Every structure is written in structure tokens, then in C-alpha cells.
């Protein structure tokens, strides 16, 4: 494949997000307004919203989640940006990673200089089984869903294939959850702003207050093996292996490279972008890897002229704990089959040699699916500019990567950013 370059450079000069969580009575437009305002406040030299020329909004399924289609012009309206062109982008859970790419392409083409990219989702209005049904529409409704696959089920099936080939165990996956909850405890935007230990303590305190039998877990692993505290969703994926059902929005301001310094003291330049598609899960030769992620990652590395070892911080699509392990292999951070050892050995901890999901990832931060890809870039904005507070990764964190997967890996978008 030919190595591709952008027609001209693009930079991110503002980023913001709503909290991720369950917010009854708050709709996507309200969440988007919050994200937009935080994005605007993050622009070092100020933003006149009138300078924005177009919007690309990632949104998976407001249609089914909140009975609202045609969401892009509504978002434009609610932040005062009509009559500018507003386009909704849908690629399942990769919707806003792909919206970002569309915004980048639009600026690189020369058509626009200033673009707003957003991501929105409102999932918590529906009962769990209808959320399960809605997420399942990202699978193949003819050949995958009728046999009973759910989204946790797809990734659980990948996990069984991975376990059989590489010897990982359910405990391996639990390590990823413990790590991401530990990171998310340092993120005030996270849905679960708590370590697993703190969640355990909360359950013990509630049992005591209500006079119920008090659980006696000795450590996180015992808690995570407790079928009542951590029920199986789709074996081997348990509740704490699954990202939550979430509401949330994120907003990013993109400008052409030549304008970057007129908006920002420390822009994030988009130096790599890749995207690929794939067949349904059963048609793939290897179920222990996501081929679209390998391809998208390679495109992004090639465009940036970088190797995996150059990346200082990465937000990867940990919709399920197994997905993070596979992602760290697909992106070349570890060889195939070694991602599970890396997780067990703590190499992916925030303070480890290969920090993954310093934000808490989708697991702890939350996974409002259409907002998750843009939300990953908000973490890049903070880490690369040194404003991540307690969870700041030490050292000169100037190169970061985001990896946003749609469905079972039928879509993947990877981006690489450099702070200059």
C-alpha cells in the first residue's frame, strides 16, 4: 500500500468533554454544550465560535437510545453554529474517531481552516436488555445476532480463542480492569472515579449499614472472582471486564497547521491517521487480533514516520478487558501473545514503561460509544500538554496515540499526535 500523507498539516487547538456517566434527564445536546464550553475554554488564545466552518459529529445510535435521529444539525444549533454544514458520522463505537478523521481530511483538503469535531451518546435511558439489543445492531443482524451473539459475547469469544492460543486466563483480564480503575480514580470525568478496592469498601459499608451479611474479600482478585459481586456477562467476560453503559460528549477544535499558533501555545499536531474496515468476526482467519487495527495503526505509523516504541502514551479501545490486551499487540507495543504477560507484569500501568489508558480507559472513564473516540483525544490533549494533574505521565510526553474500534473490529481508526 502506498504511504499516504495529508495534503496539508492539521492541529488540534482545543479539547473538552462532559463528565462520562449516567445523567438522568440530560440529553446529548446538553452534554455536547458542556463539552463545547470546556473545549472553548481550553483554547489558549481564545475562540470566536463564528470562526468555525463545519462540524463532524460522531454518534452511534441516538435513534434507538433516545429516539433522536439527524443529530448533527441539532448539535450545531445548540452551540449556535447553524447554518454551517454539520455531518453525522456513524461507525459504531468508532464514530467519533472516524469523525475526527473526516475533520482532518476536510482541513487537509483545503476546503476548511477551522472545524469542530464532536462525539455524543446517551445510553442510560434504556433498560440493559434494550441497550444490549441496540449495541448488537453494530453486529451483523442477519448472520451474527440471530445465533445469540451480544457485544460482550463477541469479545468473550475472542477471549476464548486468545486463551486457547496464548494461555491467558480470566485473571489476566481482571488485571486490566484493576489497572484501569486505578487510573480512572484520578480522573474527575470518569464514570467510576474509584479503584476496585474503594468499590469493594463501598459494598462492605453498604452491607454493614443495611445489616446484610458483610463480604469478606481479602483482595481485588477474590472480589473479582465472586459471582455475586462480579457476575458473568458472557464468559469469560464478567461485569468488571466490561465498559459501562454511559452518557457523554466530547468536542475537539481542529485548525490548519498554519493557523495553529494563532489559537494555541501548545497545539497537538496530527502527524498520523489511519483507518480500515473488516468482515464480520467469523470470516476472519485469526480471532486473536483485530486486523483493521493492525492496518490502521500501520497507516498512522507510516504517515508519522514513527515506530510503536516512539509513542509515549496511548489511549486504546478497552470496551472489554480482552480488547485492551489485543490492542497493545495490534499496535505493535508487544508481540502477538505477549500482551497478556505485559498486563500481568504491570508494564501497561500509568507509571510503567508502556502506559495504556491513563484516563481510566473506556472501562473506568465510561463508554458513551459515539463519544469515546473524541474522548480519547481529550486525554491526549491533557497528557501531551502536561495538564493531566494527578494522573500526569512523567517525562517529556510529546507523542501520543489513540486507537478507536467500531464493533468487533469492522472499523478501526488510529491517530498519532505530537505536541510542539
Amino acid at each position, binding site marked *: 500500500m502506498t504511504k499516504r500523507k495529508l495534503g496539508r498539516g492539521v492541529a488540534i487547538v482545543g479539547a473538552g468533554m462532559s463528565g462520562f456517566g449516567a445523567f438522568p434527564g440530560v440529553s446529548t445536546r446538553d452534554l455536547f454544550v458542556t463539552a463545547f464550553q470546556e473545549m472553548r475554554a481550553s483554547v489558549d488564545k481564545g475562540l470566536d465560535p463564528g470562526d468555525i466552518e463545519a462540524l463532524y459529529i460522531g454518534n452511534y445510535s441516538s435513534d434507538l437510545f433516545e429516539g433522536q435521529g439527524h443529530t448533527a444539525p441539532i448539535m450545531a444549533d445548540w452551540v449556535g453554529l447553524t447554518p454551517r454544514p454539520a455531518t453525522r458520522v456513524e461507525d459504531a463505537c468508532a464514530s467519533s474517531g472516524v469523525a475526527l478523521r473526516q475533520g482532518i481530511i476536510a482541513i487537509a483538503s483545503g476546503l476548511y481552516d477551522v472545524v469542530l469535531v464532536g462525539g455524543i451518546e446517551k445510553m442510560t435511558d434504556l433498560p*440493559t*436488555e*434494550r441497550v*444490549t*439489543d441496540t449495541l*448488537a445492531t453494530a453486529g*451483523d443482524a*442477519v*448472520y*451474527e*445476532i*440471530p*445465533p*445469540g*451473539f*451480544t457485544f*460482550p*459475547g*463477541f469479545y*468473550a*469469544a*475472542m*477471549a*476464548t*480463542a486468545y486463551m*486457547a492460543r496464548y494461555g491467558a486466563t480470566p485473571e489476566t483480564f481482571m488485571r486490566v480492569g484493576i489497572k484501569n480503575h486505578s487510573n480512572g480514580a484520578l480522573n474527575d470525568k470518569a464514570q467510576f472515579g474509584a479503584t476496585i478496592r474503594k468499590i469493594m469498601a463501598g459494598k462492605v459499608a453498604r452491607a454493614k449499614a443495611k445489616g446484610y451479611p458483610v463480604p469478606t474479600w481479602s483482595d481485588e482478585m477474590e472480589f473479582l472472582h465472586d459471582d455475586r459481586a462480579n*457476575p*458473568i*456477562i*458472557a*464468559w*469469560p*467476560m464478567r461485569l468488571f471486564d466490561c465498559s459501562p453503559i454511559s452518557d457523554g460528549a466530547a468536542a475537539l477544535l481542529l485548525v490548519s497547521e498554519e493557523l495553529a499558533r494563532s489559537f494555541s501555545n501548545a497545539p497537538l499536531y496530527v502527524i498520523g491517521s489511519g483507518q480500515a474496515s473488516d468482515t*464480520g*468476526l*467469523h*470470516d476472519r482467519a485469526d*480471532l486473536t487480533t483485530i486486523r483493521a487495527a493492525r492496518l490502521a495503526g500501520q497507516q498512522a505509523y507510516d504517515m508519522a514516520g514513527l515506530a510503536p516504541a516512539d509513542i509515549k502514551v496511548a489511549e486504546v479501545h478497552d470496551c472489554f478487558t480482552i480488547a485492551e490486551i489485543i490492542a497493545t499487540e495490534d499496535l505493535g507495543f508487544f508481540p502477538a501473545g505477549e500482551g497478556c504477560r505485559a498486563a500481568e507484569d504491570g508494564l501497561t500501568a500509568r507509571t510503567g514503561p508502556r502506559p495504556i489508558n491513563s484516563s481510566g480507559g473506556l472501562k473506568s472513564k465510561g463508554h458513551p460509544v459515539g463519544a469515546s473516540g473524541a474522548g480519547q483525544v481529550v486525554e491526549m490533549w491533557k497528557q501531551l500538554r502536561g495538564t493531566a494533574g494527578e494522573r500526569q505521565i512523567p517525562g517529556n510526553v510529546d507523542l501520543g496515540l489513540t486507537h478507536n474500534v467500531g464493533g468487533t473490529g469492522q472499523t478501526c481508526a488510529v491517530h498519532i499526535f505530537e505536541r510542539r
Partner: protein
Amino acid sequence: MSERTITGEAFYQYLGEQKLMGSRCQSCGTLHLPPRPLCPACYSGDVDWEELGGRGKLVAFTTVHIAPTAMIEAGYGRKNPYCTGIVQLDEGPAISAQIVGVDPAKPEQIDIGMPVQVAFVQRGEGEGQRTYLAFERV
């Protein structure tokens, strides 16, 4: 071998007749399951139905405890999980299917690589009753 157009609907009609049908490209010879009206290997539209033998091996699976609405209506759920997976047929292609004849409460006893053969399961009531693809341990 058939006048039926290659569609998902026809695939399920065949399942109702206890037949697992794929398609074979008459131009490059590639066998596809699920069946496809256009060969993605050579782009030929000259494809025809072909029945598969129904034997294969389990390559991935899960036991689903939090079920979608359709499976809840069929009696599955937290207290009655089911197994679903991906089966690679002896002829090469692989497909998603329910796995029956295994104990979903004991996933550790379900083996990747175990030989399976096609089974046809009915779900739904009255006019809504339909045949779905399943495999069982040989």
C-alpha cells in the same frame, strides 16, 4: 442447483429444510459461508448455492448470561445461559452459530477445537417460529 436468489432470507429458508447452504464462485471456485451474491475474492457475480457437509470444529465461543431480547423471549437469561460460538466447517469457511449439547454453566468444559456437527434449532412461537443455525458436539 436452485432457483432461489442468494439472500439471507433464502439461507434461513434452507435452514428450515435442514440444509446448511453456502455459495461457490463459479469463476474462481471459492466457497463462501454465509452465502454471497458477489464473490469478494474475484468480484464475479457467477455464484451458485452449495450445500455444506455440516461437520467442523469450534474455534471460539462464549456463554451468554446477559441476553438480548430475542433470546430472553426464547427462555434464556441469567438463570439459563446459552452457548454461542464460531464454527469452522471442514470445507474451510467459518460461521456464527448457537452451540447446543454443552453445559453453559460449565464453560471450562467446552473445548476450543472440539468437533461439532450441524444442528437446527427452532425458536419463536406460531408464525414467528423460525429455524436457526446451531452445532452440537459430535
